[in-house]
């Protein structure tokens, strides 16, 4: 296995899938000549030509809709948003068209489209460029949502997304593009959607999270270990479908749960999971479920304020101590 960056892993996934299926094409702002705002599509224009690596005007609603129309008539678009923050302009096409086309046509149209781009806060990008929107997107039946947190997951999940016949929204970590890790080189290295991954094993507490937050959770788990506490860190990887079996299994094992997400608490995926656990595994719980999320405010610019607003390993440790009544 080669050690490559998260960015290179995504690039490999795109290149391999485009090689494998001539119906796959990539479209978005700066994906071609500029090689991608985050260089995820580096070299693809030269390799696949301008019908398959398409620079668009800045017109998110328009090119997202273009992708949906193209997908409903049989080709497989990968639509890149420079960030998911900008995709808010395209939500009409994702929610009203992509998510509903199969259902409202009585199953006549497939929707093999992938929407992808970075999510979450980077550093001091302020309110409009720092949002983690995956929970909101996962709210809509008809779409699928994946949030890879490592290079290997980025490659395997993006490949699965492109091969899927439903609309899949891939939320990449804006701060993860340079992260290095071992990534299988196999062309058919595909991670099925809806399968969580236990990133660390422990028996005292379950920290359940996804995306960039797995690194925060692992950091917290390392600190807790020094105190003799062993945490299970479950990486959901996919928010819809959601691996509820894996969630219930870790709850049954540790009986104590801390949920972590980068986005806001109100209506967040952690709220859904907390509800699901109390509905289905109440008797396994030895403590209330606690959550760590972003502060429920628009992200401020100032460095110290931004830091205070983001979930941190310290916050996770504190919540773990509380569910352990320490």
């Amino acid at each position: 296995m080669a050690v490559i960056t998260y960015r290179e892993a995504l690039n490999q996934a795109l290149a391999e899938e485009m090689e494998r299926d001539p119906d796959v094409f990539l479209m978005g702002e700066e994906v071609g000549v500029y090689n991608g705002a985050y260089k995820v599509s580096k070299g693809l224009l030269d390799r696949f030509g301008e019908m398959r690596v398409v620079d668009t005007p800045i017109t998110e609603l328009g090119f997202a809709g273009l992708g949906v129309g193209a997908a409903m008539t049989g080709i497989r678009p990968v639509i890149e948003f420079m960030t998911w923050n900008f995709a808010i302009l395209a939500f009409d096409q994702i929610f009203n068209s992509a998510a509903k086309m199969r259902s409202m046509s009585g199953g006549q149209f497939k929707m093999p489209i992938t929407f992808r781009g970075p999510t979450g806060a980077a550093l001091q990008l302020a309110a409009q460029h720092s949002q983690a929107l995956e929970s909101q997107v996962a709210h809509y039946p008809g779409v699928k949502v994946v949030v890879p947190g490592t290079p290997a997951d980025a490659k395997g999940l993006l490949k699965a997304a492109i091969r899927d016949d439903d609309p899949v929204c891939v939320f990449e970590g804006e701060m993860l593009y340079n992260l290095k890790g071992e990534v299988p080189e196999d062309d058919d290295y595909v991670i099925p959607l809806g399968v969580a991954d236990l990133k660390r094993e422990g028996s005292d507490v379950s920290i359940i999270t996804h995306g960039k937050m797995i690194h925060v959770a692992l950091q917290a788990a390392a600190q807790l270990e020094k105190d003799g506490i062993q945490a299970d860190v479950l990486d959901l990887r996919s928010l819809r479908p959601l691996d509820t079996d894996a969630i219930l299994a870790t709850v049954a094992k540790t009986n104590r749960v801390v949920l972590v997400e980068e986005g806001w608490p109100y209506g967040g995926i952690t709220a859904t999971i907390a509800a699901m656990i109390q509905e289905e595994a109440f008797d396994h719980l030895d403590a209330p479920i606690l959550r760590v999320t972003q502060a429920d405010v628009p992200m401020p610019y100032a460095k110290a304020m931004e830091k205070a607003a983001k979930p941190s390993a310290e916050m996770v440790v504190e919540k773990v101590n509380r569910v352990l009544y320490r």
Partner: protein
Amino acid sequence: MAEEQTQTAETEAPEDQAQEAAHSPQDVPAAEQRRWQEAQKPEMSDEEHLQGLSREQLRKIMWDMLLARRFEEKTAEAYALGKIGGFCHLYIGQEAVAVGAIHALQPDDYVMTAYREHVHAIQAGVTPGAVMAELYGRADGCSKGKGGSMHMFSAEHNYLGGHGIVGGQIPLALGVAWKIKYRKEERVMQVYCGEAAVNQGAFHEALNMAALWKLPMVLIVENNRFGMGTAWERAASLYDIWQKATAYAMPSAVADGMDPLDMYRVSKEAADRARRGEGPTLIEARTYRFVGHSMSDPVSGVYRTKEDVEAEKLKDPIRIYADLLARLDILSQEELEAMDAEVKKLSEEAADFADKSPEPGVAELYTEIYAEENVNGRLYFDMRER
């Protein structure tokens, strides 16, 4: 030309009066009418008008328009009886637009529109029975009862819906046109929107890319003069929609939407251009709806008078076209009546078919949402039995 018109309007009406006029249903149509007439179709001889269409084709156009009218009347009746629910937007008055324009297409061309769509679906080839069954929310409906009035689909007939968000279908059509180019096909994407959709960003974003990439898309704007109850001149800074194509270096045309042959003429020319790889065309079809915005809305009221509607009905596309065919000895009054009886019967049969079609089973609630239901993980979170 637009500037001249605007200036004329300003010199004629001082600002306070213009303000008043903009809110008065009595005065606005007069000003609008003036601009309307300036964009009328060119004088044509009968021969030019018929464009070499065969006697059979000309009669088929009549048949299709009559069916459209009778079908929608039957729909209104069924709605009043409570057989049809929800929002239901009828096409009465606008028949010439879709009938004329779709006659200009080949069978493998695509059609897509917004939510005033029953006639487009039928004209694209969906049977009246399948359309009526969809209106009734039945299993034999063209969307199996899951779509309803606003979401008819037929993959078999390249009929791509049926979309309920104003303007939202235009980027979708752009994507179909992209697919045609991607696959190097010789097909055309004919998409419709109402005039009110022209103010949506989706319209402008799609036009820009369609022209930039020379995609085979023909966009027909059905200007029926009112976005629900808002007159076009109260919603648009530039009256002439066809002129908006200029902003995207795209050819455009204005067509008489009360004349199926004029619709055929401009749509054919646009489709031919698209098929030759010469890119998109914007068509403004000037038409009028004789009915309320939807079945829940009155025909006239605060935004237009009963007299306005009656005056427009003198330009009923069916009557005018029938007169033309009679004058040219293509269709006699007796033949027209026989045709009318046929389409009425067909509409009755469609309603009978819908009535007899079963309700979709509630077990279908969780089908056809995802391509595959047996996946890893949970897709639905409602905790219900499935």
